[in-house]
């Protein structure tokens, strides 16, 4: 720990001697910009006239994300990702390679998220007003009078943009969190807006609300576990700081106290606490058996939200998980590795098998994301530097593919809104070859076909796992990939080789927002697949955690 950081809480010298905490604003710039913009966004909702809100909010969100991304790049360029890696805000946050890499990824995905949120060409205009995927008035009863009048008035839920920014802010902190408290707060900051975002779909509102309830209750349930885990770990180590806990776990604490000596002897605290902590992470990444919310929520939430959530949350959560395992708990590597092995295997296999019989494209992608979580977990278990960089790379690759894929899903519509049932996708390749081809590219990337980012990522994590001695994991992963390939291929078959139905959905021509989101997704998929070297280097350089 750096010298300038004090323990604020050990107030031995009296209250008036408490030093003001030292905050490195420059290092925290990305997070601060995003959260600041979110707060501004709330103010916008309050003060800007309704008709201007959309433009202002979108502009603000994109600007904030771009500025934050610029800040991340600047930090990385000035070596904060590598040599200058350090902790900030009195050790609460880490500014190091993995954090910056993941923040960059989250911000890019976030920009694409804003784009898909801002799309107003897809839904047919209601009473002359262009509308997006979000409810006119989320508080109104579905189908009620209030809703109808809100629709008539052309209301839209522009609050989604600040919510998105808040969530993004939480995600930026999550992988950078360097103590358990920050971790917990970040988790809540990213989760709460997402719960709300799930609930505000314009169409199929009952499902949207149901998704929100499920997500919320189960999410809260899991954060309760996480909190209790934090409590137990704190009890074990006497601190919430990662570095301190790591030392204690490793068995050589800096400041030995009698109480610490007492609790240190109680391994149950560490083990149960660690397990509960991991549980919280597993919930967020959707690992089996904590995955069950995933399909329901992915299906019910507005598709732009699903895309953003699936991509960004996973990135953030895996970042946090990596830091936990590599910084806090390396001392108990021999305890968590077998557990992780088990979870990874079950997740890969169950995700792949369950996806086979899905009939809804969003649920299909949900199960696919579960299987992918399994693959990434395989990389996480490698427990070496390769493991970190391969997971980082995989997350970036996966993030773009996911956003792109869900963006495509928003395009395929019939009278009832998005046509997500797979049977309606039959023959899409004949009606709209371009859209189908793009979706096929995403599916192939999910399936891990060479020359797509999915392959490069999969190869990276499997390689890391193999080098880390987890050969059985690789074998299971390969088998799961084969099973998974089956259902991706099934969709492709459906799109290209089935005759289109006369009543089938049409592809709506989107605005530049969605087009650019999809285009970036495709570009990232292909670039990361064909020439991944640059990004692998990035991820490789970012492969060291600061303590």
């Amino acid at each position, binding site marked *: 720990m750096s010298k300038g950081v004090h323990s604020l809480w050990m107030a031995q010298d009296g209250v008036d001697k408490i030093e003001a905490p030292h905050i490195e604003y420059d290092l925290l710039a990305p997070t601060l910009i995003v959260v600041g913009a979110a707060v501004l966004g709330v103010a916008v909702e309050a003060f800007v006239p309704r008709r201007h809100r959309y433009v202002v909010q979108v502009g603000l969100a994109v600007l904030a994300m771009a500025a934050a991304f610029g800040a991340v790049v600047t930090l990385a360029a000035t070596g904060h990702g590598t040599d200058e890696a350090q902790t900030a805000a009195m050790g609460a946050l880490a500014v190091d390679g993995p954090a910056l890499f993941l923040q960059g990824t989250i911000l890019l995905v976030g920009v694409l998220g804003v784009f898909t949120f801002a799309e107003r060409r897809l839904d047919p205009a209601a009473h002359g007003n262009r509308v997006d995927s979000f409810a006119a008035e989320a508080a109104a009863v579905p189908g009620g009078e209030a809703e109808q009048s809100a629709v008539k008035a052309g209301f839209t839920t522009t609050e989604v943009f600040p919510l998105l920014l808040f969530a993004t802010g939480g995600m930026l902190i999550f992988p950078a969190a360097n103590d358990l408290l920050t971790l917990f707060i970040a988790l809540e900051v990213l989760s709460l807006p997402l719960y709300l975002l799930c609930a505000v779909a314009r169409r199929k509102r009952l499902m949207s609300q149901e998704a929100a309830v499920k997500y919320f209750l189960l999410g809260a349930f899991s954060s309760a576990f996480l909190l209790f885990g934090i409590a137990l770990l704190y009890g074990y180590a006497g601190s919430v700081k990662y570095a301190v806990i790591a030392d204690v776990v490793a068995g050589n604490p800096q400041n030995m106290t009698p109480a610490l000596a007492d609790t240190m002897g109680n391994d149950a605290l560490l083990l149960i606490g660690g397990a509960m902590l991991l549980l919280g992470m597993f919930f967020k990444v959707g690992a089996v058996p904590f995955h069950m919310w995933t399909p329901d929520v992915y299906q019910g939430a507005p598709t732009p939200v699903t895309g953003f959530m699936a991509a960004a949350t996973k990135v953030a959560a895996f970042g946090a998980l990596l830091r936990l395992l590599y910084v806090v708990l390396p001392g108990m590597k021999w305890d968590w590795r077998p557990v992780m092995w088990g979870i990874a295997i079950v997740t890969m296999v169950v995700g792949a098998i369950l996806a086979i019989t899905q009939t809804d494209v969003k649920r299909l992608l949900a199960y696919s994301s579960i299987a992918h979580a399994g693959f990434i977990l395989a990389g996480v278990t490698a427990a070496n530097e390769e493991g970190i*960089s391969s997971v980082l790379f995989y997350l970036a690759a996966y993030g773009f593919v996911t956003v792109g894929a869900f963006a495509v899903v928003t395009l395929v519509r019939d009278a009832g809104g998005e046509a997500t049932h797979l049977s309606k996708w039959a023959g899409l*390749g*004949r*009606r*709209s*070859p*371009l859209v189908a081809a793009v979706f096929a590219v995403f599916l*192939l990337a999910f*399936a*891990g*076909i*060479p*020359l797509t980012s999915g*392959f*490069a990522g999969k*190869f*990276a994590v*499997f*390689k890391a796992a*193999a*080098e880390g001695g987890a*050969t059985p994991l*690789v*074998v299971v992963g*390969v*088998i799961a*990939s*084969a099973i998974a*390939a*089956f259902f991706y*291929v*099934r969709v*492709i*078959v459906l799109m*290209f*080789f*089935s*005759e*289109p139905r006369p009543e089938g959905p049409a592809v709506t021509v989107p605005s530049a927002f969605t087009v650019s989101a999809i285009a970036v997704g495709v570009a990232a998929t292909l670039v990361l697949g064909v*020439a*991944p*070297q640059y990004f*692998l*280097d990035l991820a*490789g350089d970012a492969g060291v955690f600061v303590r």
Partner: protein
Amino acid sequence: MGAIATAAVPAARRELAKWLALGVSLATFVLAAVIAVRFDPDGDRFQLTESRAWIADFGVRYELGVDGIAVVLVALTALLVPFVILAGWRDADPAGGSAASTQSRWRPTQGFFALILAVEAMVIISFLATDVFLFYIFFEAMLIPMYFLIGGFGDKAHEHGEEEAARQRSYAAVKFLLYNLAGGLIMLAAVIGLYAATSDQLGAGTFSLQEILQARGNGELELSTNTERLLFLGFFFAFAVKAPLWPLHTWLPNAMGESTPPVAVLITAVVDKVGTFAMLRFCLGLFPEASDWATPLVLVLALVSILYGALLAIGQRDIKRLIAYASISHFGFIILGIFAMTSQGHSGATLYMVNHGISTALLMLVAGFLISRRGSRLIADYGGVQKVAPVLAGTFLVGGLATLSLPGLAPFVSEFLVLVGTFSRYPVIGIIATVGIVLAAIYVLVLYQRTMTGPVTEKVAKLPDLRVREVLVVAPLIALLVGLGVYPKPLTEIVNPAVEHTMSDVQKTDPEPDVTPVEAAHE
């Protein structure tokens, strides 16, 4: 060299797609011919090499180079693709005026030819790659365009109507993809394993074939017996699926049966060759001891393939499936030749790949012309074609005779070399394999008899003979079959040094004859 890859990739987009595609494929052929000419059989093992860092993190290099075996296969690929394109000239034309074609933006014609070119490019890179990972990538990637070619442009002819045809087609495409993908993924595990092994022992992981060979040669890389065997099996499995070897063969009849004839040619004559080629280059080159260990098993499987494929061919009712099973039998021969571990076997197998490509292409394309005329794939629907369309029947017969390895045509040379090569090390297997040539005669002649001879059936009576375009496709193939049958020397001269290298990789020498000949046959 790199130009090959790039030249072949651009997808034809316009109305002129066909001509463009043909032009590109011809240009590729010219390039391939240039390579073949520039290739010096007595020079280094790998020539015209090109190496560039690609994904340093994975130790992957963009490393191309040809040895004698690769060069002939590249030439074969480049040679066949123009014919495939020419033969498939009309295959992807949209069904005139149907509702689907007016309301959709589906442009099958361009797509068809673009996909063919994509496959060509990927196959060529697979042949050229001297980096295991690079090879793997294209080995897998070529599945995708192939998959669309099978599923998207299948044969409309089916005894139970078009809807059934579409169902069968997508089943075939999926089966093709899943089989090969499963094989490929298992290979992926092995590729990763290989990398882990190299990075363990050499310090830095590498996929470069040359580096690995070198390291093995000077003892820096010593794989434990078990590791080597497992890795070998991983690689071999993928290649055996692709090749296809019994009992991993069932995708081929489906795929070939349901796709258009030119695509079927592409599958069996070009794409599947990557499998056998890779056995020769990677399985034998990287894992000589494991190859030796697996030889008995592989030989038996190859033998089963030969007989089983031939027997099933006899039992088929569908012309294209029959040819597919015949191909399975032939692939059995190729694999037999490879794992016989003799120079004759290896040379024979290499030549066999080329010759089988040409002969199957001929047979399949002519069969395709026939099927497109009559609209049925069932053998029983034909009869007496010889009388109505003698040129078609004649070329079909030549293709058939090549398939049954009639001496004087190219396949005979290779088949005999394979048999001799096998026989000199494993006499019993060699003898059983020769039964295959009787079975080949049966299925070819039964097919010919049932379709071409006998009284002219009613529906056949109006079939036109081959058109100029079709003759243009067929004639050069026949000329090649005869030419290479009579004078295969140019090929063997290119192949021989490469075979010697492979033999030294596996540390085998040919069995000596009992008796030293009193004097050489001549000179």
